């Protein structure tokens, strides 16, 4: 369907090329520090939570729904895991499935309200997310809870493969699963149809409501998994920190949709987008720029990448 001409390939790999150009630029400026394996292991190992939140967001986005509650699912599950483990001394073998089940339940509630009452998912998940934040502050007494079992940290950031913390491989594993699901399963195709046109999907026999509900549940489970990793990364649960993941995750999901499979939310695009942003911020820190420059980069890179992608593709209207 797509022409395999140069401009399409440029569009597909534009972000990767810009990413490599950034690596070359930072490498040329600080070769002794930036171009070291320890620095790349830091880059890859530090944003697994953001990758997973982005992947989680992507599923309802593909079905045409927004899940603004995902960051609060991260925070609530992170807090729940910390309280059950550190304060109530329950075994992790019980705590972790409970955390994932909590994420699934919240996804189910999001989906049920959206579908039964026919309210836009943006409003429902915004409300549910705010409600969840209230619960997090309540159960955690607005405090950071520490003292989580070291074994959780061990299996998130301490254990390393090729020098990179193991959380990175969890994120990549999930990206492979989601890529497979979207590309090779009936559910993946139904998700795409649902997102492209609900009426058309319904007329072609797709159970649109069921597909949207499952998308919300999957998003909840991935948010919960990210929450568990967050607790494992910091060894504690902070009642508000997950909140700050929402905008970067949306930025990465939209930025990711400009590459690899342009015009579609896709897992590899999302992964590349996250690491492109992280590389830029890491490089600026290594070069000694002040922290406000990171905001300039985050916002500037997003707008610029989307503009370039549109120019390369001949400024056609986006379906997203």
């Amino acid at each position, binding site marked *: 369907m797509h022409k395999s001409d140069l401009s399409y390939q440029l569009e597909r790999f534009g972000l990767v090329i810009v990413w490599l150009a950034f690596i070359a630029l930072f490498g040329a400026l600080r070769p002794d520090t930036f171009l070291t394996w320890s620095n790349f292991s830091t880059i890859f190992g530090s944003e697994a939570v953001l990758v997973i939140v982005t992947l989680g967001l992507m599923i309802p986005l593909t079905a045409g729904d927004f899940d603004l509650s995902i960051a609060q699912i991260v925070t609530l599950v992170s807090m729940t895991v910390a309280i059950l483990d550190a304060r109530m001394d329950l075994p992790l073998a019980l705590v972790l499935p409970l955390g994932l089940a909590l994420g699934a339940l919240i996804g189910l509630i999001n989906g049920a309200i959206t579908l039964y009452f026919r309210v836009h998912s943006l409003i429902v998940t915004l409300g549910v997310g705010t409600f969840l934040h209230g619960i997090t502050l309540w159960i955690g007494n607005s405090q950071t809870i520490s003292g989580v079992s070291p074994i959780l*940290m061990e299996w998130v950031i301490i254990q390393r493969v090729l020098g990179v913390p193991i959380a990175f491989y969890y994120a990549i594993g999930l990206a492979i699963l989601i890529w497979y699901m979207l590309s090779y399963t009936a559910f993946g195709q139904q998700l795409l149809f649902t997102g492209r046109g609900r009426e058309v999907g319904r007329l072609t026999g797709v159970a649109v409501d069921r597909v949207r509900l499952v998308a919300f549940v999957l998003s909840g489970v991935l948010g919960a998994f990210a929450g568990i990793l967050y607790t494992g990364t910091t*060894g504690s649960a902070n009642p508000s920190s997950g909140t700050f993941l929402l905008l970067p995750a949306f930025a990465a999901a939209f930025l990711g949709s400009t590459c690899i499979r342009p015009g579609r939310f896709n897992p590899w695009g999302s992964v590349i987008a996250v690491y492109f942003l992280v590389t830029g911020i*890491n490089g600026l*820190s290594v070069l000694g720029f002040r922290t406000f420059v990171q905001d300039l980069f985050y916002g500037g890179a997003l707008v610029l990448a989307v503009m370039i992608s549109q120019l390369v593709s001949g400024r056609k209207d986006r379906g997203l």
Partner: protein
Amino acid sequence: MTKMFKGMGLVSALMMASALPALAQDDPAAAAMVNIEAYSGIPEFTPPGDPFDARACMEGKSILTVPASSAIPFIKTIADGKDALAKELGFKHAQWENQGNPTQWIQGMNYAANNGFDVVSLLAGADPRFFEPQVKMAQAAGVKVVTSHLTGLEIPGPAGVDANTAIDYKQAGKLMADWTITQTDAKVNALILVSNEALSTDSLVEGLTEAFAKCPDCTYEIVNVPIVDWATRIQPTVQGKLQANPDINYVIPIYDSMSSFVTPAIAISGKRDTVKVATFNGTPFVLDLVRDGTVEMDIGENLDWIAHAMLDAEMRLICGLEPVTDSKVPLRVFSAENISEVGDPADASKGYGDAYVEGYRKLWNVTK
């Protein structure tokens, strides 16, 4: 003969006293250790002023406390402590519950002005620079406005307030630097994280830089991360700095709640054995991190002591006594050696002894 011994004793004491500063200059680690040891034990009570009859002069008077945010346990605990003390002393004390929004602080100021309160206490971060007109309006209505636990001793009260009860933040800054100097044998290479918008930051940084100035082989870099960006900026910033400067041996987040973003950055960078964390505030979860070894040292203040000290200063203002600027709230250094004294999980008011409880009651002329 006895006279001669006495004379020799005096001479040697004088010689030792004059040698101490020289020793401090020659050996920065030894000088720093003197400071650390002075703040490692259970603190003593130092009266902030002369005794007075609190019950008599506070009869019929009232104080409204506007906390920076009632949702922050550190601040809420202090405000609740003031409530309990006012009840014990028999006068009216109320809290203007809020969630840290300056609009809510302004509502609190208006409430105080319209309801005949004698003092409004802006507690632990409710910054009057955000609502100067309302401060003037309350003062015009006869309400005295006090900032409590907001600035260091060197900083004057902001926005024309009537009094400013301060904390020795500069000493806290010195202690953080001194700790790292003692632990590295005066070869510190520190990354210091600050948030410039907080009024206490200036004093903390002044203390840090003053202490490091006495250590010729110590280097440091100060990085500002605004409070709203802690969750997103601290981790990548610390990771980047640890890569750019592999000789860093200490990260000093000047507010200990930053630690939850600093410690993963150190772990991900694979530097848990070489980079340590020294910090300030005594927040319970960070004291727990000191117990498990993730954070090496945390300087704390007793929240109940703060409640006593702030109320004492506010009562003195109402009673027409000499205003108190130096609250004399002590600091204590918590490390692996004494962390068992704070409870498990840590309690914000444990580990400081209870000398202040009796001390303040004697000062106020009441017996418990």
